[in-house]
């Protein structure tokens, strides 16, 4: 094999770069989808507080607003977990309800302290999510179908469980610290004369969740591999990523976050009841999608999700304060959402024009 073979090869390494990058591929700051949301948010806050100064009332508006945002940001993150795969979790609400049931049962029957019950509930949510993920990855059936069917099944199960374990539809016993979570803000806790900000105690839960999810997708191998699976499952498989496991893990994390949302809602409402999670499904999509996460998978925006959840809750609050009747309320919520969504489109068109001229 000493024969020498020849082939055409460039004389010089390809250093002289022909298509010199004329501008970096990143989008300009003003065209960042998150920025658009922030502007819209500020606009709405200004509008609402001009029309109704009560919008800036701390105890009655701002504090409850923060508590609501916390719940729905976590709900959005739960959906985001599977959107990253290009999947959907139609059972977020019911997973939250099952978790809340487990927590309620633990507090009521076993008198466990708050963190223990929380862990038990989150474990239940995680298991349910993992179950969904397992069915999806094993059978290859679309996630929408699997989680929808699971949702159906759990609607029934939850009622059966509550009627079996409680005489009403809620657990009566719960640790006293739940009351603090519900009622207190950091302003109630002082060191000497220095008191905390007017932030409800549930907010840190949501913040930690958002940070953890952000960290996961940016730095953790797990999160990155989930994103790669979402972008192109076949290529991920061929790159040595255990895609089936990643699907299960993403769904499990979705279940875990749903469980956390259920806990926060129970804290806000003051009871672990069968109705927890009933209203989660639609907001769970609104947050991420408003924040710029596509349903196609492979890319997520955590900040966007939080901003999206904030926007929806601000809209609700504002319209509530304006005291619209039911028909108008729904009408305006839908319209404002459409506007918020289209704004993104307008921004895109503008960005494209600018890009084309550059």
């Amino acid at each position, binding site marked *: *094999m*000493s*024969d*020498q*073979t*020849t*082939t*055409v*090869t*460039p*004389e*010089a*390494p*390809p250093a*002289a*770069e*022909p*298509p010199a*990058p*004329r*501008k*970096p*591929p*990143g*989008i300009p700051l003003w065209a960042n989808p998150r920025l658009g949301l922030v502007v819209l948010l500020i606009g709405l806050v200004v509008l609402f507080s001009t029309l109704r100064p009560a919008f800036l009332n701390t105890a009655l508006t701002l504090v409850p607003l923060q508590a609501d945002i916390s719940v729905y940001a976590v709900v959005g993150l739960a959906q985001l977990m599977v959107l990253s795969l290009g999947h959907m979790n139609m059972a977020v609400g019911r997973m939250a309800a099952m978790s809340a049931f487990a927590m309620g049962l633990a507090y009521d029957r076993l008198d466990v302290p708050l963190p223990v019950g929380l862990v038990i509930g989150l474990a239940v949510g995680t298991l349910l999510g993992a179950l969904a993920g397992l069915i999806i990855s094993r059978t290859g059936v679309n996630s929408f179908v699997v989680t929808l069917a699971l949702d159906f099944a759990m609607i029934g199960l939850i009622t059966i469980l509550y009627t079996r374990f409680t005489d009403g539809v809620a657990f009566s016993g719960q640790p006293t610290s739940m009351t603090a979570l519900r009622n207190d803000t950091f302003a109630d806790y002082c060191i000497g004369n220095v008191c905390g900000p007017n932030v409800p105690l549930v907010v840190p839960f949501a913040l930690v969740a958002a940070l953890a999810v952000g*960290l996961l997708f940016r*730095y*953790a*191998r*797990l999160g*990155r*591999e989930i*994103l*790669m699976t979402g*972008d*192109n499952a*076949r*290529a*991920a*498989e*061929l*790159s*040595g*990523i*255990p895609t089936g496991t990643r699907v299960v893990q993403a769904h499990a994390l979705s279940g875990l976050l749903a469980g956390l949302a259920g806990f926060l809602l129970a804290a806000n409402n003051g009871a672990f009841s069968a109705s927890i999670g009933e209203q989660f499904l639609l907001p769970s999509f609104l947050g991420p999608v408003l924040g710029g996460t596509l349903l196609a998978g*492979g*890319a997520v925006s955590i900040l966007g999700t939080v901003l999206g959840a904030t926007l929806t809750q601000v809209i609700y609050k504002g319209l509530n304060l304006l005291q619209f009747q039911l028909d108008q309320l729904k009408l305006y919520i839908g319209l404002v959402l459409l506007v918020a969504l289209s704004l993104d489109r307008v921004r895109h068109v503008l960005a494209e024009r600018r*890009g*084309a001229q*550059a």
Partner: protein
Amino acid sequence: MILTAEGLVKTFPGVRALDGATLRLAAGSVHALLGENGAGKSTMVKLLTGVYRPDGGRIVLDGKELHLTGPLDAQRAGIGVVHQERNLIPAFSIAENIVLHHLPRRLGVVDRNRMRAEARRCLDLLDLDLDPDTPVADLSVAHGQLVEIAKALSLDSKVLLLDEPTASLTGDEADRLYAIVRKLTTDGGRAVVLVSHKLEEVFAIADTVTVLRDGHSVAEAEPLESYSQGQVVDLMVGRAYASVTLAAREVDPQTRPALRLDRVSTAGGHRDVSLTVRPGEILGLYGLVGAGRSELAKALLGLDRITGGTVEVQGQPVRIRTVGEALRRYKIGYVTENRKEEGVFLDQPITRNIGVTIWRRIARAGLVTERAERTVVADYTERLGIRAASPRQLAGQLSGGNQQKVSLAKWLAAQCEILIVDEPTVGIDVRTKAAFHELIAELAGAGMALLLISSDLPEIVTLADRVAVMNDFTVRGELANDHDYGRMSQAIIRMIHAGPDPEQTGAGPDRPDAAGEPAA
């Protein structure tokens, strides 16, 4: 001139794909449109067929300026096209796909008889004996490509643009296609634009040539006779090219094989496949499309069940269940032939595309340090000469050749000891191809064991130390490579066509078509 396009400009975010390019097309001629990967050939084709709208320049057909707002406009104006990517609707029948742009109708209802007749006519032009009612999903890649061509012919257009039509065709099929192209131009007076990286074919059929470089036309409608292949390459690349010698390798046949297959059979239908690859050696695996080479590679990676025989890695018998296991425990990598679907993550930045195989190695407590990742990735982008605006650019925005490099870089970064490379240079321009060849040789030189799957005979002869010939899901034989193209090619072809095993009947030379039912 039947078609003139002047000063065409097209900008994508961050890239100017065309920057004042010109194309002049005479009636009755075959015109070659050449250029390196990413030179802007497909973009030009798409501008001429209304897929994209130009940012500048004008297109004149038959003396009238065209303002194409969509593909339909181009079709109406008489411009037919076969795009580089396959564009058929899998669930529809061949007939419906062929006439989709002008479904024959009566009162809004599809006239199926006319539809079939029209499809039959186009298939007959290509001598294709396919049932027009077959769903396209059931077709092989090559047949799909031919249906696509039939579809373009159904328009009876004045101008026909073919963007790499033969990339997935066998020699016979390509020859038949070119015969039709000839007929169309000489009999029908039509003009054909041919985009191809296979320069031999181009020189055999084209009359004139336009060469694109970085979005400019550096040769405009010149007669092809006035050039040699080398000169065209120089034009495409932008400077003089010289042949460089690949370093010779010496492999001791006593070395313990890195990978050894002994009478392996698979659920996919392989029988008695035996191969050995030693460290520092390139084993070429040649075969016609559908011979079962890619499937063999995938079976080795655990994507298909191995039903018999033994696989040994570094002397140890192994049972590989997942690609991850192949990568981590046995250090086997696989560069897929199908980069768009299986090789790259189109919506992810280059860094993540390359980094995906190394995260496990560089992660601390499950967290990836971005700096470590960037260093490794930068190393490989540089070594492979990946041209991108920034490492954060999305892989989907790269030209085909650069995507291929990204797909390879991922496996180099993974530090494999055994690398299976599947059709590494399909659709790759000459210069990049040469760079790839050099790189592959270099990897072998550095002690890697390489299994090179290729349908490109010159490539095999250039690179391989030994050549195994596969047909019909089994290895027909093995040859030592003496690097003499003429002799090697004859020996290899003879080996493919050497009659089938006595107990095997009906597997003649046209067997690849039926490869869908290997275990029959």
